């Protein structure tokens, strides 16, 4: 069933802030095997001009995808999450995420398309810090495969 086009442009309320912890960044960096000292050593990060350790570029996805749950689980939209696969992902950064950030995400449905029976939804997640400054925008394309294939 095609998704309702009237949802295009809908913006969901900003999430409660997610506080980025130094040890969570370390855990993530270790999980991807990345030993860049900017992720674990505050002095190394400062030498690069950052006020504290920074997170790897894709770290923020865990936060934006959780926020996208508002869209994915919106009963009025009716997306069948059991059929959803991740199509595309893009990030546009104003600055890297860093330890101590308190990040809120505002999710907007950018586009809804149906191609060959698959529902395709583009979600934009704007991430702002506690001061209201933009940090990064995540663009997530999800594809819900048509029911016959599931």
């Amino acid at each position, binding site marked *: 069933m095609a998704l309702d086009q009237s949802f295009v442009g809908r913006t969901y309320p900003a999430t409660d802030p997610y506080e980025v912890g130094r040890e969570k960044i370390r855990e*993530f960096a270790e999980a991807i095997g990345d030993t860049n000292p900017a992720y674990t050593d505050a002095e190394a990060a400062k030498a*690069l*001009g950052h006020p504290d350790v*920074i997170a*790897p570029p894709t770290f923020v996805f865990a936060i934006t995808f959780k926020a996208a749950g508002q869209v994915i689980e919106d009963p009025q939209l009716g997306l069948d999450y059991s059929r959803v696969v991740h199509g595309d992902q893009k990030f546009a950064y104003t*600055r890297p995420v860093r330890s101590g950030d308190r990040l809120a995400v505002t999710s907007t449905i950018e586009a809804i398309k149906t191609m060959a029976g698959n529902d395709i939804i583009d979600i934009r997640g704007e991430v702002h810090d506690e001061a209201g400054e933009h940090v990064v925008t995540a663009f997530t394309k999800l594809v819900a495969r048509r029911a016959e294939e599931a």
Partner: protein
Amino acid sequence: MTAQISYDDVEVGTELPAQSFPVSRATLVRYAGASGDFNPIHWNEKFAKEVGLPDVIAHGMFTMAEAIRVVTDWAGDPGAVAEYGVRFTKPVVVPNDDNGALIEVSAKVAAKLDDDARTVRVDLTAMSAGQKVLGMSRAVVRLA
């Protein structure tokens, strides 16, 4: 932001040092915990096969995280990455054996975008088992 590579020193076609990233089942369990993505297709072979996959597959976001290391290691400062996007074209299949899978990433400067902002576009290629696992994989990087 303090990239260690100067904009003036790169040309269109400049290749970044390629890297290969091994992936085992243990890697995926660890990434699931760190990222909070516990979808069983990434650790449960029975479940993965029931939904039509050949075997357990790596998280797309894990592959995305590995591929950009070629850029962040080259630039020196991970904060030099201004944009990064990929398309997930093929899964990285991770068998339950001693070898697991390998993600092989190469990259080159595809365009010099802005002489004032000193930004370049880097195009990445990520392969696993002879298949291209990421498409449209591009980063915009602010150089020194």
